[in-house]
């Protein structure tokens, strides 16, 4: 392949008028003034509409009496590809299996949503939510209490009335 040299012909400084470009730019500005089709979103006053399939930080569903729905079956730590769930099971005073420790490291989480998919009791969910700012890194390891406190909506990847997707 032959090498060619392309010579750029630029207007010489001092002999150039920017008037045409300025008018072109101003006309666009004026057009937007007259026809305000806004693209800037006034966050946080205005909230983004998240996709129903959005997968954000987790929340744990609770029973009416405040107990977590989790039965510590161990499927979510088993299926988790990022290995971000730590679970220690035990027995509560009513003889039910429950999680003594349930921690999710939201930094390690890749938000694949498999924990929600695999959960046999519809306890752990990924949320439609993205505002997670914290002052320390440690706060991103969500423990059981923290997960139960979360009240943001959950993802609609799976219809709660039809979890098997039939």
């Amino acid at each position, binding site marked *: 392949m032959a090498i060619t040299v392309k010579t750029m012909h630029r207007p010489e400084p001092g002999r150039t008028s920017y008037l045409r470009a300025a008018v072109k730019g101003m006309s666009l500005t004026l057009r937007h003034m007259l026809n305000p089709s806004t693209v800037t979103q006034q966050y946080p006053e205005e909230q983004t509409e998240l996709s129903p399939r959005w997968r954000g930080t987790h929340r744990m569903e609770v029973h009416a009496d405040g107990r977590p729905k989790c*039965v*510590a*079956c*161990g*499927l979510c730590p*088993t299926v988790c590809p990022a290995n971000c769930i730590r679970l220690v*099971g*035990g*027995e509560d005073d009513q*003889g*039910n*299996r429950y999680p003594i420790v349930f921690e999710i490291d939201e930094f390690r989480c890749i938000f694949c949503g498999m924990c929600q998919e695999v959960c*046999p*009791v519809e306890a752990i969910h990924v949320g439609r939510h993205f505002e997670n700012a914290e002052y320390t890194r440690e706060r991103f390891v969500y423990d059981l209490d923290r997960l139960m406190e979360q009240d943001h909506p959950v993802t609609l990847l799976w219809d709660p009335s039809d979890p098997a997707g039939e």
Partner: protein
Amino acid sequence: MSDNTTTETVTLTVDGQDVTVAKGTTILQAIDQVGTEIPHYCYHPGLSSPAMCRLCLVEVEGAPKLLPSCVTQATEGQVVHTESENAAGMRRGVLEFYLVNHPLDCPVCDQSGECKLQDYVFAEGRERGRSREPKRIFGRDDFGGDVLFYGDRCVMCTRCVRFMEEIEQKPLLTIVDRGTRSIIDTFFDRGLEEAEWGGNVVDICPVGALVSKDFLHKARAWDLKHTPSVCGSCSQGCNIDLHTRDNLVHRIKPRFNADVNGHWMCDYGRGNYEWMNRSDRVEEPTFVDDGRAVQLGWDVALEALEQRLAGVTGGVKAVVSASWSNEDLGAMAKFVESLGGGEIVFRSARAEDESPLRGFPSLARRRDLVPNIKGAELLGMTRVGGDEGRGGLEGVADHDGLIVVLGDDLADQDEFFGSKASLFVYLGAHTSVGASAAHFTLPVSTFAEQKGTFTNHEGIVQEFLPALEAPGSARPASHVISSLVGAPA
């Protein structure tokens, strides 16, 4: 069963494959030899076969109906089909019946992951049950000892009842009621706390009906790493698997060995694992130099020890523990010999009497509650002290020459033990007051953390493999000692 014709064989065909077995072998065992497994619950190789689970039914050409393979003897020229429409369809039907009353509570069941019902239904069962009737509910029952009974999960294979009758020969379990109401139960206020081998019913239960209280909800079966090992709780040397997770032993299960323990192990050995998870461990090699404790790693410590050994006088006295492997004890014996020889003693706890397993006469919880007493004795070491594994070290405590302690954690000794010695070397796993005066404290691994062998009471040498990671810089004692054996004495 065949009497004096054990060499006689029969040849049969299983799923198109010819197999030759000894006369008297059951079809189920012949199928096993072919390499496939026929589902079964009530049959257990260590127990009698009542042929009541109806799951091992196979089609035999010429037989009018399906035959239970666990009790039917293989005969010459038999043609067996396990995957025929008839046999597989029967299994599918039987499995569906098992699920009529099974609660399907796999998420909260400890057997999940090692459950035969789960496996069989997953492999051959129907995708969905057709039963719409409410399930009968029994709830759970404390059977005493370490055993908890979830009646709803039971498949009524009666392995547990037969184990207590035939092997332990203390019939503490029975079937009460009939039909779908039938259930395993204990007799009124009696329970498995009277048994010494009751933990085995948890192992042989094919489903989650009998579970261990100690292991209840502790870990999932698929998370546990299984390491072949040898039980360290008595001189019987039962073959075991250590089930570990997160560098902790979670439970002990027996491993089959026809010559030593069969399928079984005692409750004492099964429950005696917490010491392997102790955290009060010696972690770094430490030695005292001019009154200061120095921790500069193995190379420096061993070099310093070699120098100190060169100038030591007054003879050697060694204390070992018979819970350490043949290799460790052998290295110790060599080491003492290389220093001109000396007395090597060990102490060990001894129970009042043996507790034998009546249905398996070669197995008992032996009197000596340490695994390698035979190995230590064969190496010329002598047992001292009382039956509780204490005392007997009066001659060593005030010895003014070299004292070497391996493994014995000197729990009954005070901080003056060995304070008159010209050199006191403590090769130990656990920190101890008795080792306060030690000039050298060298961390060694326990048998759960290293490879080695134990010699059991009959002289059978059995290997174990490392299941845990040793803490800090702990090493097998044989490595530490053998690097000293060349040292000038």
